[in-house]
């Protein structure tokens, strides 16, 4: 069996020497800059990914309403069973399910602070449908040929557990400009 760390060292050294022969310092810095800018810009893309942030608590002055109701402001473009009724919450999946890696996003107006928020509707996957609190709203929802603005897809195909759809969360991912 080869010595893996040594092999990696040798590979990196070979790539670095190769790059030094072909690429000028300015273009290298430019490339690294483009990579960093691109990476920083990724969370801004309309394909929301699964990492969570600290959620805002519901039923407060700045986050009014009940996440277990269809009328809750974040549910303006949701289509599915509300995870808050299924053992999860408005922003977290129920036990034993997997947060879908990719999903669709909507822009919802928060009457609590008057701001528009980008909301990521992640499906929770790996079990049959929860069957509770079905909610279907379509503010600025688009047809299937605009996938990342469409709530008629089951977004579980992006998860490891496959397409078994259980329920949907509505996570804030940022303020809409």
């Amino acid at each position, binding site marked *: 069996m080869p010595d893996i760390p040594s092999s990696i060292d040798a590979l990196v050294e070979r790539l670095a020497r190769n790059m030094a022969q072909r690429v000028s310092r300015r273009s290298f810095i430019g490339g690294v800059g483009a990579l960093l800018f691109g990476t920083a810009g990724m969370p801004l893309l309309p394909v929301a990914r699964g990492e969570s942030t600290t959620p805002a608590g519901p039923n407060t002055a700045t986050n009014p309403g009940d996440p277990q109701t269809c009328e809750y402001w974040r549910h303006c473009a949701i289509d599915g069973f509300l995870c808050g009724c299924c053992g999860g919450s408005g922003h977290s999946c129920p036990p034993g399910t997997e947060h879908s890696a990719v999903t669709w996003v909507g822009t919802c107006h928060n009457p609590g602070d008057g701001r528009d928020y980008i909301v990521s509707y992640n499906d929770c996957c790996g079990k049959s449908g929860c069957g509770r609190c079905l909610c279907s709203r379509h503010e600025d929802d688009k*047809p299937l040929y*605009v*996938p990342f603005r469409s709530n008629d897809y089951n977004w579980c195909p992006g998860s490891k557990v496959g397409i078994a759809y259980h329920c949907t969360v509505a996570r804030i991912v940022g303020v809409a400009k």
Partner: protein
Amino acid sequence: MNRTQRAWRRAALALLACICGERGWAQLPAEPPAVEQLPSRPTPHWVWVNDTSFFAYPDGRAFLVDGDSGKMLGMLSTGFSFNGVLVPKAGGVIYSPEIYFSRGTRGTRTDVVTIYDATRLEPVGGIEIPPKRASILPMAAAQVLTDDERFLLIYNFTPAQSVTVVDTRSRKFVGEIETAGCALVYPTGPRSFFSICGDGALLVTTLTDAGTLASHVRTAAFIDVLKDPVTEKGVRWRDTWLFASFEGVLHPLRATGASVKAEPTWPLFTSQELAQHWRTGGLNHLAMHGGSGRLFAIVHQGGPETREELGEEVWVYDVASRKRAQTIAMRNKVGSIQVSQDSHPLLFACAMENNRLDIYDATSGKYLRTVEPLGQTPALLVTP
């Protein structure tokens, strides 16, 4: 008891024995075990009610109903995230794209096109395809047959977009055609179809006789997706596909083989009707009767965000004159419709929100009958 009384008593007992005895009742014949079989050809008034079983997603079903009698004729069990069956005009079989997991909701995923015998409703074959079929709210454009019914085309979303091609003659998976940025399948001939792209353009795909990719042509955008997109629920009349926009503009796309041309649009609603917020709505909200050239559209009153709301009326348009010809009041709110293609057509109506099928005379608009309960979340109606 004298002799006369005894005689009467004997007569009465004899009569009683005659009435109540084993021989007095008409005897029912013995019944051997039996399984029904359907006629070899469907009638034009049969309809497949495809039920995605959203509350029990692994257990999709397709119900076959006779629209004339309201009788349920049979059912298929069709697996996970079921969209609908395909009924070739050639008859004999039913195609059903299905998904299964080795352990119900988990384990190894297998996608298959199951082939059912059309009279016995039993599986007689299966074609395994890549485990990529789009899991969506049901719609006709997710899976179609080419015009000569040789190839079955299935829309994939993983979320990479592509189309699976199946050869119905050899009953084999042919291959996968990438349609990056473009969704769904709308046939335009024996070897061609188009998909709608995210920027409002069309991707026109032509196939070789073997079902592999011959060419891809991308058209200019025919809609402004941000301003007023069309729904995916287009219907076909002769060589033209008809799509309704969110704001009630009808977009005809004349499609012959590799050529797809946007024809002049026309409004489904007058300015007064728009001011009253009439719009099309529902999951599968359009149906076309080819013989009469009449377009059926589910309508309701509401804002732009109500585009999938159920409707209380179906408005009927004469496509040639571009005029509304009829209004049919629905007995129950409706999300999906279909019309039979014979000269005395029936209008079928259902909604995922309830489990019934309403049947109307499509010419007079007269309500005929309701079949209920029927399934769980019926969403897509397919007529032979």
